[in-house]
């Protein structure tokens, strides 16, 4: 007779695990703060969260968040639209692929600061963050969506040809669900990039009433706690935006009848 021993490992609750990890990192932060012991170099997590709490009662705080958010959002959405259109036409027309590829490679390789400085010459300061967010996310969306289109199962496409499915149905039932994971990846990575590049553009461009401007001012006046507070705000906004965006895309595609539920 054989005896089987099965070890059942208890899985920790996801929420508890995540909270635990965050607490550990906050503890490490606090430890570094105590070791460094110079408020000018590093603020304590408590001071930072108290400062965020204080800032949340000011108009400047919400106005800056609103303005930065709208501009970065505009840049991101434009990048998603233009990147997707570019991906569609360059996968269909090889000549256009050859034409656009060098331009997109140049954008990918150029330091973001160079673009910001050029944009300062070309554009008004309030347009810079949207432009930079657009420019940084565009190659990502283009490359990912192109990859998704290329990887769509040719056998399924042949099946739709035999059954003479209308283009709209092929798009909804085959192409969009195939490309979706690539598009979602581009969104997830792109959102973080858009925030980073957008805020950097606001700092260098000294855009009025923006998160970047607040960060710049905090640096000028050596308000380390403010720098940390605004940085934490950007991280939280980026994460919330990422989650909200994924939900919005899911809702949107279900609304137009795309048979897809990977998100």
């Amino acid at each position, binding site marked *: 007779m054989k005896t089987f021993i099965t070890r059942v490992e208890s899985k920790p609750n996801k929420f508890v695990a995540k909270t635990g990890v965050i607490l550990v990192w906050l503890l490490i932060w606090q430890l570094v703060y105590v070791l460094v012991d110079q408020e000018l170099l590093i603020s304590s997590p408590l001071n930072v969260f108290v400062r965020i709490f204080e800032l949340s009662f000011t108009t400047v705080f919400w106005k800056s968040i609103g303005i930065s958010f709208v501009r970065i959002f505009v840049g991101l959405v434009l990048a998603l639209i233009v990147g997707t259109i570019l991906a569609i036409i360059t996968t269909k027309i090889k000549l256009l692929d050859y034409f656009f590829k060098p331009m997109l490679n140049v954008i990918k390789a150029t330091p973001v600061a160079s673009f910001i400085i050029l944009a300062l010459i070309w554009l008004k300061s309030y347009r810079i963050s949207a432009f930079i967010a657009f420019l940084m996310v565009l190659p990502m969306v283009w490359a990912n969506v192109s990859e998704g289109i290329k990887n769509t199962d040719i*056998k*399924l496409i*042949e099946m739709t*040809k*035999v*059954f003479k*499915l209308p283009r709209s149905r092929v798009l909804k039932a085959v192409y969009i669900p195939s490309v979706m994971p690539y598009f979602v990846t581009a969104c997830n990575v792109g959102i973080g990039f858009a925030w980073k590049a957008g805020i950097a553009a606001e700092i260098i461009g000294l855009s009025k009433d923006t998160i970047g401007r607040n960060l710049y001012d905090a640096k000028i006046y050596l308000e380390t706690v403010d720098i940390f507070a605004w940085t934490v705000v950007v991280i939280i906004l980026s994460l919330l935006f990422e989650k909200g965006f994924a939900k919005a895309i899911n809702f949107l595609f279900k609304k137009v009848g795309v048979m897809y539920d990977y998100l």
Partner: protein
Amino acid sequence: MITFKSVSKSFDGEIVISNKTIEFPEKGIVCIFGPSGVGKTTIFNLIAGLIEPDDGEIEVTEDISMVFQEDRLVPWLTAGENISLVIEDKELGQRNAIKYMKAMQLVGAESKRPSELSGGMKRRVAIARAMAYDKRIMLMDEPFKGLEVELKNFIMDQVIKLAEDKLIVIVTHEKAEIDYLMAEVVWL
């Protein structure tokens, strides 16, 4: 309905079909029989218009329905959706999906995705899809592969019934299937 005259096709310089002529009747069952690699699936792909011949004449005057060798079910759609997908009218599509799933003894599998179905069930969904598309020509590439004998015979009976007013072309390796279907045979 199908003209297939002096057709040649090669891939990367390797001749798969050479100057082949096949005469298809207006209705009934035609089995294309032969060992692997003689170009049976290539003939189907040529008739379906998925590939072009190097030489010869192919003309298909009617829409065709097809059971592919590899099922080709859309993985993120349910079995029912895979069937209704090929029917233009949404309501009719849903009705036909239920009807042909019943015919293929797939009741209860409507809302299952292909990954949740066995090989034989996937095959039956592919057959149900082709039947639901309901065209005068149906191409079936090894349709009974992986099916149990009883079920295979049951489906072959349905194919015989369909062939009363349709042309059904079947690729097979099994002599027993040809005998059961009492089909015309094209030897390759």
